[in-house]
């Protein structure tokens, strides 16, 4: 077992909201606007944390527990994610599976909290969220399995350490397919553009946002923060596969990783500015394609 480092976790917790700000800024620039400050997500979180939470009388403890477990599960998952040259805090054989299930646990609690409000909109959003996640999960699993098969490890730490330029020379098509599948999963899981429009607040079209309408104050801050952390988690895996340079110097690798995250943030912003949302009925087809791409990567 490699001795873990706290740095990946600290980086994630400090910089995750910044990545969302980068996406927002890219979209603003593309639309010809100035856009909010890059620190805006932090100010939003601070504002929400200083407010009090309002609880409807129809809700129970389940509603209050949802955001807490959601945030906790993402943070636990992040302790398993390495960054740049630094290994994750903990690593063991099979933590790939644990990561997927931790994300599922967080989602389950958000969904249960949404159903607890008794609002029909939230039920609708919960139903959509679960439908599309159920399709995104096999794609994520298969993509991770493809990476595991290619590198021969079952833990994310050695997998990302083993992916190198030599792996690209040996298995470029397989890695390309994996990245394509992971990118679709990344966009779907973080409710970004072709699947869900994070900017809209129209109940008929929302998927993820509609589930958190009733949360307020610190609870909402936790939800926003765990969404940012979740995006960081997926982005780390994608960047780790796309930019597999291991220079030997950990700090240089970390800097490369951070640049990769910045590029991915800008790319996501560009995708959002240039694409329209898919019709709800077409989304299962997109997820099906993601499953296929990752299954093909696994089969090769």
């Amino acid at each position, binding site marked *: 077992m490699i001795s873990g480092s706290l740095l990946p976790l600290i980086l994630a917790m400090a910089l995750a909201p910044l990545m969302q700000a980068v996406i927002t800024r890219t979209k603003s620039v593309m639309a010809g606007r100035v856009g909010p400050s890059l620190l805006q997500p932090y100010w939003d979180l601070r504002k929400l944390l200083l407010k009090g939470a309002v609880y409807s009388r129809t809700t129970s403890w389940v509603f209050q527990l949802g955001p807490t477990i959601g945030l906790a599960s993402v943070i636990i998952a992040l302790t398993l994610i390495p960054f740049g040259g630094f290994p994750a805090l903990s690593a063991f054989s099979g933590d790939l599976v644990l990561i997927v299930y931790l994300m599922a646990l967080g989602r389950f609690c958000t969904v249960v909290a949404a159903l607890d409000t008794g609002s029909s909109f939230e039920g609708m959003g919960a139903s959509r969220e679960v439908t599309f996640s159920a399709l995104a999960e096999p794609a994520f699993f298969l993509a991770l399995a493809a990476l595991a098969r290619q590198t021969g490890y079952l833990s994310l730490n050695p997998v990302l350490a083993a992916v190198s330029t030599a792996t690209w020379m040996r298995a*470029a*098509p397989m890695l390309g397919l994996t990245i394509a599948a992971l990118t679709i999963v990344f966009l779907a899981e973080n409710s970004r553009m072709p699947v869900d429009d994070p900017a809209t607040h129209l109940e008929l079209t929302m998927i993820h946002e509609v589930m958190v309408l009733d949360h307020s104050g610190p609870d909402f801050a936790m939800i926003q923060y765990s969404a940012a952390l979740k995006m960081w988690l997926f982005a780390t895996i994608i960047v780790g596969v796309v930019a597999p340079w291991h220079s030997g110097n950990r700090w240089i690798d970390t800097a490369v990783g951070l640049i990769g995250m910045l590029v991915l943030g800008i790319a996501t912003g560009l995708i959002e500015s240039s694409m329209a949302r898919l019709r709800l009925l077409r989304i299962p087809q997109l997820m099906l394609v993601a499953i296929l791409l990752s299954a093909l990567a696994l*089969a090769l």
Partner: protein
Amino acid sequence: MGQLINSILVLLMLTGFMLLGSSRLAACIRTIAIQGLLLGFLAISMQDGDWTISGVLLPTTSAVVKGVVLPWLLFRAMREADTAREVEPFISYNLSIIAGAAALALSLWLGARLQLPNQPASSLLVPTAFFTSLVGMIVIASRRKALTQVLGYLALENGVYAFGTAVALHLPVLVELGILLDVFVAVFVMGIAMFHISREFNHIDTDKLAALTDRLR
């Protein structure tokens, strides 16, 4: 070298899924054009150094015919028949993609079991060839418009061509030219047939042709 061939083969597989998943005829025609061009690249990159004039010229001709001439004919047919979409296929697009996945699994299994006289350049070559042919068959069987069925026929032919490059690197020039001419004439005739069908019935839905019977219904 092996990576280049593998990448082309994976792209070929993806064009198969694009054909199965898209409803716009123009997109399907473009997919078939890309498939034809990729096959040309594949045949050229299989030569692996020992270039011959016929070895480069034949794939180039085939790529031009399949990637430029036939798509042009098909676009013309599409304009004349005044159809832009395959509206209601017999099998939904999601189901077609799943059928494609099953076909891929079958082709990978077949490719692993099939004994060939000579070792192909890539272990993916035979599965890709089978898969492309199977996609062609699925498209022919599950789509309503005559134009999409022509596209299925072309995919089928592309699969056979890919299999040809797997088994014999150098087919006699005459045979290859003959096959190319056959395909060209076939698509030409199908285009004319489609034009007549659409002029007669104002659509190119082949399932309605069953109504052309003497039997009283």
